[in-house]
């Protein structure tokens, strides 16, 4: 699987490259700035890109903007955005185009290499990987979600992170059919049309949460 890495700190860039190569990824480019990233994405069309939010030259949200820009010109280009901090605002921006293949994770998640690589594979396959911290922030205090039972909320959180039914069942020690039942109930309570497709399901849930929360658009 071909990967482009964008990270300005040399040690982390080298570490990520080594980690991904150990898991059989092919790192086609490891760049350190926003403009380079955009060029590399367009040149290599990787199966997945791993992008740090803050990159030179401005050290603001260069990486995030490059990722959104690349996905605008190449819809569905799988990107996993890494950051020292996670914000709902950025998650919403990444999800705004409604396309599949998006990941947004705290940098710390790299420590758990298996889960990190799993998230990367999921995104490359057109799935979603949202950091549990973002999901928790998105879900907390949203009035329409108050109708859900505690167990349903747990299922919803895992679903929003982008996990499959099987993974959710494994985590919560539930049978596949129990998970399906919970999911059907959640969709019923939120008034969403059920779908068998994992990705569309996640996007629907995330769009629903993001759309129903306090809207601060001017």
């Amino acid at each position: 699987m071909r990967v482009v890495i964008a990270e300005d700190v040399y040690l982390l860039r080298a570490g990520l490259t080594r980690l991904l190569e150990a898991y059989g990824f092919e790192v086609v480019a490891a760049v350190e700035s926003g403009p380079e990233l955009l060029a590399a994405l367009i040149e290599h069309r990787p199966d997945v890109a791993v992008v740090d939010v803050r990159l030179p030259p401005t050290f603001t949200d260069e990486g995030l903007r490059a990722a959104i820009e690349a996905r605008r010109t190449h819809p569905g280009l799988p990107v996993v955005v890494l950051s020292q901090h996670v914000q709902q605002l950025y998650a919403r921006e990444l999800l705004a185009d409604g396309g599949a293949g998006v990941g947004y994770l705290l940098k710390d998640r790299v420590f758990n290499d298996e889960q990190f690589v799993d998230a990367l594979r999921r995104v490359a396959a057109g799935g979603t990987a949202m950091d549990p911290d973002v999901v928790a922030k998105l879900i907390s205090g949203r009035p329409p979600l108050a109708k859900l039972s505690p167990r349903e909320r747990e299922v919803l959180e895992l679903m929003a992170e982008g996990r499959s039914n099987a993974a959710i069942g494994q985590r919560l020690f539930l049978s596949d059919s129990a998970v399906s039942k919970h999911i059907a109930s959640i969709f019923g309570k939120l008034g969403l049309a059920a779908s068998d497709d994992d990705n569309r399901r996640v996007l629907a849930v995330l769009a629903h949460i993001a759309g129903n929360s306090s809207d601060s658009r001017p």
Partner: protein
Amino acid sequence: MARLRGLGLVALGLLGLPLAVVDLVALVFGLSPVVLAVRRLPMVARELAGEWCGMPIAEPYNPAPLPPRPRHDGMYEVRRRLYRRPHVPAYRQRVQWLASDGATWLDLLWLVVNPVAGTVLGLAAVVVGRPGLRWHGRWTRALLGARRPWPNWVRDRTVLVLDGAQLAALTVAGLLLAALQVAAGVLALTGVTWPLIVLVENSRTFINYYRGRIGGIDEPYRPAPPPPRPEADGRYRVRRRLYRSPTVPARLTRLYWLAGDPASGRDLLWLLLNPLVTVTLLAAPCAAMLVGFGQLTTTVSQLWQHTQPWWRGPVGAAVAVAVLVIAPTLRGWHDRWTPVLLAPTKSARLAKRVERLTETRADAVDTQAAELRRIERDLHDGAQGRLVAMGMALRAVERLLDADPETARKLIVEVRENTATALTEIRELVHGIHPPVLAERGLVDAIRVVALDSPLDVEVAADLPGRLDPPVESAAYFAVREVLTNAVKHSGADHVRVDVSHAGGLLRIVVHDDGHGGADPAGGTGLLGVRRRLGTFDGVLDVRSPVGGPTTLMLEIPCVLSSRRTSTSSEPG
């Protein structure tokens, strides 16, 4: 019948002259019950216009104000002053209500003019009967009706001239204060100082009222001295004298403060000079106008008797109209003269500025130092400690690797967990120093993130086509965050709206919530901290939060926008 009624109206009109004098005096000195009593006469005239002349006239007066309501602490507030009982606030409210009602001043004009105009028309009714009564009714409605058919111009200008006369009357009263001050100054030389202190303080109140009437003139006075503090031996020192009790030193420092302020001298000079100015520019024209109208009406009333040359009437009218025409110019000259002596001088302004800067600098230094201490403590207790623990654990792993690999593995897991915790702690610390979103996206998106994370329904509207200087941005961000935290904790609001805009070199952030109000910067440390934070940048916090809500806070910071990129235009949430 019509003739008798005509005579009655003449008699009613003649009552107006003495009452006009009473009314003017009562208005100048704020005797609201007297003004209300005098109102009876125009009210009777309105009723008669309806019953006798077939011209019903509605009451034109503004409705009486509601009785003052106490604040949350039971005190009554009038123009930034607090009163324990409602009497004085109610009284000031009534004076304000009467003086600001145009109908009051038109009543006064009617009292002056009607004795003549009303007499003429009343006599006309005696001669021609019913039509004369109708003319009288029309005249009464023209002046006393709610809907005035004659142009606002005359009304506005008349009110302006009468207002000027009131200012002139005030300054003449000020002459008395000046004379007493001079006398008290002489008395102070003999050692009796309290009359001077009392007089200077009262004249400051008086002149501040005048400043408020003209508008836009700041107080020039130096800040009041602190209460005297004892020396090491318990005695109090004032210049080269020592006192055992603080009473005399307190009075003396107050005296030196009042007498040593150049603004006091300028005040006294103004008290002496201003009567000249106001009498020439405001009182004399007003008198000329009244005499002019008087001449016109007397001439008309005596046209048949030829006791007075006929041309006095038109000349009188011309003078009165001329006064109305030039009144705003004269008032403008007066308003430009006033700040010459009453506005702070350049050095007074600089002194004030230095004082303010000293204060805000001390605040800034304190805040910074506290912040650094907090960061130092957090690093010391958190990340630093964890790194030491991790180092030790790794050393143990090194030793155990061959002998006890199982324990070594456990230790390694522990170390990894420790790194994760240390990272979280540092993340939180960084967030408290300078939130990453602020650096990455600027003020508006940083506020949006706070809004998204808030349990309240917060709406952010922004018009900020650029970035601010980082220090200003940071101060504004933390101020807004504090305000929103306060709203969550205390306001009981469901919905909050934040408006961010920049115009005329001023960043303005308005935070409005629909909670139960009663926010008081003096009450808690939260808003006080916000005010301090903004003070460093010459920013201000304005709090409007009546008990019962809603609350509106306005933060303003003078600053410039740079053209650095700010939040994208298509951002969600």
